[in-house]
């Protein structure tokens, strides 16, 4: 087999007949809750570096399975009692920067159509990688995140404030922005893309191009591309009551 688990010694290895093979596959699909084999796009021609979302989710998987046998072990904070975690990578990115008038912003649109029914969002994060900025030395930056609630043709879009993080221009880090507040809307309108807009300002309020501040977008290496990760818990009423 592959590099993974080895069958325990003494475990009899039988050659499965065709019908047994189908039975075992059916059992595996039902026990693991796998929805069946997706139609993945053509396999990559050569070996590809793993992308950021699968790398992050594999860490979560190890944290989650590490707790499988210890029911009372403290799960990693974000996992909490989540029994489903999804990362969204299908994204369209728009820049409102590079010389145009202020404020500069970067916008990301995620396709949320794959969210399963009957799941309640417990937490949602937008993760973007930041490299040290070579343009802004020793400056403190405020990174704020908004949800694009409604686009307007003749004026600025309707925005909903989600989160604000402060960091140094020289920091190199995965920046995690809490977008849980946006989850009510996307469950009601999952046919609409989730629009997230990101602004960067210096301490004295000047708008900065997010790219110049070191925030990487879709053109980053695969292992550092931005993504949204959402934690769900099965609930009879998937919509959180508005506060």
């Amino acid at each position, binding site marked *: 087999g592959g590099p993974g688990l080895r069958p325990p010694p003494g475990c009899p290895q039988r050659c499965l007949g065709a019908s047994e093979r189908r*039975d075992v596959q059916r059992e595996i699909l039902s026990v*693991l809750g796998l929805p069946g084999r997706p139609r993945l796009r053509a396999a990559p021609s050569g070996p590809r570096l793993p992308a950021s979302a699968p790398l992050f989710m594999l860490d979560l998987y190890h944290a*989650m399975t590490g707790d499988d046998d210890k029911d009372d072990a403290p799960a990693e904070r974000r996992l909490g009692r989540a029994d489903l975690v*999804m990362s969204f990578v299908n994204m369209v990115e728009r820049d409102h920067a590079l010389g145009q008038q202020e404020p500069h912003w970067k916008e990301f649109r995620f396709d949320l159509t794959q969210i399963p029914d009957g799941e309640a969002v417990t937490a949602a994060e937008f993760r973007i990688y930041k490299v040290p900025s070579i343009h802004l030395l020793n400056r403190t930056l405020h990174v704020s995140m908004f949800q694009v609630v409604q686009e307007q043709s003749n004026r600025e879009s309707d925005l909903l404030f989600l989160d604000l993080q402060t960091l140094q221009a020289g920091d190199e880090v995965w920046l995690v922005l809490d977008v849980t507040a946006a989850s009510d809307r996307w469950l009601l309108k999952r046919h609409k893309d989730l629009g997230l807009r990101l602004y960067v300002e210096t301490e004295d309020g000047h708008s900065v191009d997010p790219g110049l501040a070191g925030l990487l977008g879709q053109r980053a290496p695969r292992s550092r591309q931005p993504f949204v990760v959402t934690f769900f818990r099965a609930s009879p009423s998937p919509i959180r009551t508005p506060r």
Partner: protein
Amino acid sequence: AVRPLRRRQPKKTNELPQANRLPGIFDDVHGSHGRQVCRRHELYVSFQDLGWLDWVIAPQGYSAYYCEGECSFPLGSCMNATNHAILQSLVHLMKPDAVPKACCAPTKLSATSVLYYDNSNNVILRKHRNMVVKACGCH
């Protein structure tokens, strides 16, 4: 004439067999009337063998269980190890002479997690609680 002592019947209890109890001299491993008690076996299925690794990121494989012996509810695609053990134990309690003792009564159920791609290349981590029998009576 001396009356033979009547052998006292063991008191019937409703407890599931203890996990760490191995067959002892009072346990008839071959069941009554020489039949063989059900015994669970593990068959490891590698997802690489199934060609699933471009879809399922983790785990690498799955331990499917099957059993040999006289089972009223044999393991199969519609009967996983947990249900098999519970049903077998209940029926054995009701008809100890007719149905052999279950070898794998659940003492500890654990979660099963799986990490995989969906149709849009999103990555999904799903956890099913109380799913898999990890400890059973015959180990």
